């Protein structure tokens, strides 16, 4: 069980870490774009983001399942991962975390004094430099957006169960393993895995908080 648990922890870290990285890579620029600009369709985009923030993970699991299944019109495309692989789980978690990161980043950007953008432009900033300056001002909110994204995926079970299949040694992560152990009546094992999951969440959030705190006092 110990070796298995180690594998499960490592896979959980890998799946959630990679998913958080890509959802931040996509979500932060999307949040900046939505927070700073007006464009046709922005309202619809914001409504979609808000909807995505509360989307049931199991529905996202179902959508990704169809997308990656043989019935999908996109089936066979080289960049799409196979079902029941860690990559499929990562894709589902990116879709889950993206609206959280984008939505909270947008809110953080909108909380920065709107006059600042014009004032940094008056000091000679290009549009990109102005956007980066505002992002820097909103850094605490952006960290909170990443925390929210991490919280959304580390605790998630429905989507990864559907697209990963909870295959031992291949796609079994902490949350799916906890469900399995509980169903089998192995409460001690389930409780141990839960404590590891809580510890992981605590360590990652503590690191993000330290980063936030350092920036706040920077």
């Amino acid at each position, binding site marked *: 069980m110990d070796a298995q648990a180690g594998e499960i922890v490592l896979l959980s870290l890998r799946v959630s870490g990679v998913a958080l990285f890509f959802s931040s890579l996509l979500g932060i620029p999307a949040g900046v774009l939505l927070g700073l600009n007006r464009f046709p369709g922005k309202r619809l985009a914001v409504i979609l983001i808000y909807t995505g923030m509360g989307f049931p993970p199991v529905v996202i699991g179902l959508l990704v399942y169809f997308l990656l299944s043989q019935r999908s019109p996109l089936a066979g495309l080289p960049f799409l991962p196979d079902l029941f692989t860690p990559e499929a789980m990562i894709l589902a978690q990116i879709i889950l975390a993206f609206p959280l990161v984008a939505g909270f980043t947008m809110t953080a950007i909108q909380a920065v*004094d709107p*006059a*600042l953008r*014009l*004032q*940094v*432009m*008056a*000091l*000679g*900033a*290009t549009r990109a*430099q102005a956007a980066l*300056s505002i992002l*820097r*001002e909103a850094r605490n909110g952006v960290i909170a957006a990443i925390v929210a994204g991490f919280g959304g995926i580390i605790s998630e079970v429905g989507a990864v169960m559907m697209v990963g299949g909870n295959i031992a040694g291949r796609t079994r992560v902490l949350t799916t393993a906890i469900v399995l152990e509980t169903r089998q009546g192995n409460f001690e094992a389930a409780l141990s895995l839960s404590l590891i999951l809580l510890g992981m969440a605590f360590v990652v959030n503590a690191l993000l908080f330290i980063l936030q705190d350092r920036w706040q006092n*920077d």
Partner: protein
Amino acid sequence: MDILYRVEGLQQIYQNRTVLDVPELDIYRGEILAVVGPSGAGKSTLLRLLAFLESPARGQILFENYPFTPLTAEMPLSLRRRVTMVFQRPVLLHDSVRANVMYGLRLRGERDHHSRVEQALREVGMDRMAHVRARTLSGGEIQRTALARAIVLQPEVLLLDEPTANLDPYNVRLIEDLIQRLNRQYGMTLVIVTHNVFQARRLAHRTALLLDGKLIEVRDTHTFFESPGDARTRAFIHGEWVC
């Protein structure tokens, strides 16, 4: 005199309302031009247009013969960076005073800026507060820091929007002295928006009156105050209600 800005048929319209209408205005290199007028007269709008921060609805601004028109998406960065503006309500970055003053230099990729930053801080009397967090500053200190982050860039044109509004007499004197020094020592062109006619009289070579978005008259400061050509100017400088 050498014309730096030539304003021709300039209009700015917000939500179908004409907020600025300047048929003609020249701004000369090396002068201090004061733009006076009551609140809502379009003074700040004129400054934002001169800083190329928003495009005009009609007409054009020629900056050294380079046109800024309604069709100009953005002025070339090299021209835009020759002009700097200090706003009436400056917003500083959540950082130290020194970092705020360095900001514009960093944007330009200038690394060897220590002495320039120190000098700019000294000019505004903020050198002892260089390490202080911007969010802890008073109104006067924020205004002086904003001025320092503008003058450190050594712009050719400095646009000041109510630079001494709500400041105590000490800070007003300090900023007015600096304005005159920048003009005399460095030949900087300054356009100062103020509702304080006494300040315009103290500082400016020429003074312009804006009323309800319209340029009423622009003259050398002595003539503007002693024998204005328009009854509305006379009324304004005597503190009467004009519209």
